């Protein structure tokens, strides 16, 4: 945090977009400053020059001049268009995860953050990530709306119950950066904070390898897939009562209603929690709902497993939806 005479003035720039957000910020400050000084200056001059003096009557200043009105409408409009385009372009950069980003799954729960690395690493209120690599966060809440906010990276996104939201960042400087919950979520909203530890890749690997673990997410997902009986109906060779899930993730699915849907994380989550919401042609809706039986972490692990059934090059991450 940059200080000026002991006052904290400016947050660190620790992500790939931070510099560009700050550049936009300085542009906006400059435009506001110019207009503020322009207006305050003109007003001060006028109130001094035309202060009420005996015998000095106000002189007709006319009803107003069309061209002047035009100028001070078009100029602000032009400036706002610049702000709009620059802001919109940056917004899409902030929210479009680059291909091949490292996945991290986030579950927000009243008043703590649970992070899960695909390798199975699980953390509470702490997130260890390697510097220089784009990290894509897939987030969901178990209760109310939360919001994961890392000021040093200049990014945040609400975390909704019942629907996945995603965001990404690429840390550019090592160090520890605060993360906050930025959407009011109840009594201990202000305690739902934590740290992002940005480490050199080797240190990150050591940290990752630091201790025994039940196995990577997709392996746990596989176990869960068997335990819950999914495997009885979903056989990889498509001989079960339900469709094979090999190659499902990322593919286009045509429902019985003819509607074509992209099988992304949300789609699979809905298939598991609300099976009859998406009926498939030539299959009976016999799949039981697992809502309330599998925790959010369990769902994420099942999805990781189903993703792993799709050969790597076929799966493409969903781009920003319209």
């Amino acid at each position: 945090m940059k200080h000026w005479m002991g006052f904290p003035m400016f947050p660190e720039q620790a992500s790939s977009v931070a510099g560009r957000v700050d550049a936009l910020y300085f542009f906006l400050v400059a435009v506001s400053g110019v207009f503020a000084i322009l207006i305050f200056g003109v007003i001060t001059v006028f109130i001094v020059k035309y202060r009420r003096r005996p015998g000095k009557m106000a002189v007709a200043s006319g009803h107003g001049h069309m061209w002047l009105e035009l100028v001070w409408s078009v100029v602000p409009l032009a400036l706002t268009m610049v702000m709009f385009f620059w802001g919109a372009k940056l917004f899409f950069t902030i929210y479009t995860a680059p291909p091949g980003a490292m996945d991290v799954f986030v579950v927000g729960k009243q008043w703590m953050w649970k992070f899960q690395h695909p390798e199975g690493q699980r953390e509470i209120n702490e997130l260890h990530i390697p510097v220089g690599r784009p990290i894509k966060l897939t987030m969901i809440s178990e209760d109310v709306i939360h919001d994961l906010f890392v000021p040093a990276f200049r990014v945040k996104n609400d975390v909704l119950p019942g629907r996945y939201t995603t965001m990404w960042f690429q840390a550019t400087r090592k160090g520890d950066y605060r993360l906050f919950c930025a959407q009011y979520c109840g009594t201990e909203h202000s305690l739902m904070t934590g740290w992002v530890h940005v480490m050199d890749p080797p240190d990150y690997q050591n940290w990752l390898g630091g201790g025994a673990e039940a196995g990577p997410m997709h392996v746990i997902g596989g176990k869960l897939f068997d335990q819950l009986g999914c495997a009885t109906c979903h056989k990889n060779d498509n001989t079960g009562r339900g469709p094979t899930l090999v190659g499902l993730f990322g593919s286009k699915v045509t429902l019985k209603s003819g509607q074509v849907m992209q099988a992304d994380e949300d789609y699979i989550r809905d298939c598991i929690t609300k099976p009859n919401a998406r009926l498939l042609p030539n299959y009976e809706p016999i799949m039981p709902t697992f809502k309330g039986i599998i925790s959010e972490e369990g769902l994420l692990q099942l999805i990781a497993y189903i993703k792993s059934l799709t050969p790597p090059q076929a799966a493409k991450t969903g781009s920003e939806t319209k």
Partner: protein
Amino acid sequence: MTTSEPTMPPVHYLNCDYSIRSWLLTQDHKRIALLFLVSITVFFLLGSTYAGMIRTELLTPNGNVVSHQNYNKLFTMHGLIMIFFFLIPSIPTVLGNFLIPMMIGARDLAFPRLNLASWYVYTLGGIFTITAAVAGGVDTGWTFYTPYSSIYSHTNVTTMAVGVFITGFSSIFTGLNFIVTIHKMRAPGLTWFRLPLFVWAIYATSIIMVLGTPVIAITLAMVGLERVFHIGIFDPALGGDPLLFQHLFWFYSHPAVYIMILPSMGVVSELIACFSRNRIFGYKIVAFSSVAIAVVGFLVWGHHMFVSGQSAYAGLIFSFLSFLVAIPSAIKVFNWTATLYKGSISYDAPMLYALGFIGLFTIGGVTGLFLATLGMDVHVHDTYFVVAHFHYIMVGGAIMGYMGGLHFWWPKITGRLYPEQWARLAALVIFLGFNLTFFPQFILGYLGMPRRYHTYPAEFQVLNVMSSAGASILGVGYMLPLFYLLWSLRRGPIAGPNPWGAKGLEWLTPSPPPTENFEQTPVVTEEAYAYRPEENASG
């Protein structure tokens, strides 16, 4: 100033009847305005105490003054009371009720009984709110976001929702009354383009009050239903969508912020014209921009939901339209500045408030542009940057306008002049205290201090202490007018009909005016703000 020593008329709307009945069952728009003045001042003091407690708590990083849940109740009650029970009613129900009939040469509003009903409905809503506050308050934030407000919160959300629901009808009744009065009861010769700009501003505000308030009423009713019957129109577990609530809530709540600022803009137009003895520069443009803000204001609500999971496509549209809605405000600021050109400017207290309004509204407004910029809002959403934006434009803007209007028309309302020097001092103290309170919050916001945080990291403490220091100065600043205005009721000099030499039909009546305002309905032959008779254009 009038040459002869000004005298108070023997009989006027205040001393014609002192009985409680005559006040509680009055149909005189002027008395109803005073009833509202008393009620909203009570709520302003209540809201300010909550603000004072918030600032006291935030002096230290760890929460050692109140518990977590109580702090959450502090900012929720502070937000709710200040918005729904102070700022939305303030100018329309006090200055609007008092002045609109007089400014258009009418004896009263179109529906006096509806006007009194508006005050009773407001008070009933207020009683519900006070009960909710006494019974333990509400901790959902003034935004009532579901599913927290509908399922997880165990505080008096339903009572509060009913209170705000009922008070909403006070806004609807007042708005309806103004629209019909302005359309149908103008004095002969008073065409639309000869109306004072305050009347235009109140007309634009009334459109929003009438079209927007019902939406918040039905939304809060749905939240109430969900809490009472546990059925989920907004509950994700039962298939409801929390984003639908946000859309319905902000569909009203953004236009609501324009309900708060437009009347102040109307007051400032009157003050700038009177104290610079000049016709408002570009009268028609300023009049149309009030209506433009009101109408386009209904199309931008999504800029509160850029990072809430709303699609990027919607974000683009709402960001673009938010910039369009800013243009009329910009035009107004430039026209006010141009009105000072070649004027004959005096620095009475109302003028100081008007100039303060222009300055602080500009800062508040341009920071709104920061928030409307998609890329910027991602970082500063739900941080103190937003808190600073809306306090600059609501406290710095709307309240400055309200104070200016109150001082400007005080002689007409009470027949007495307030002490000028004290008023100028108060204006200065408020201006300084205000900036010290809220400017540091811009820096805090960009540093990333989130909103609604009871405890915060230690590195934010210095700026928070500055803000709290400013709040206590601001608190003192607000108390001053309370004292000297009450003092002036007894010992203020007699004002006479037109102490400022201002234009406008309301200055034709004695101060304080008789109950029926005008013996005969005046006929208007000249333009608004015709301070220089020599070019008395037809208009």
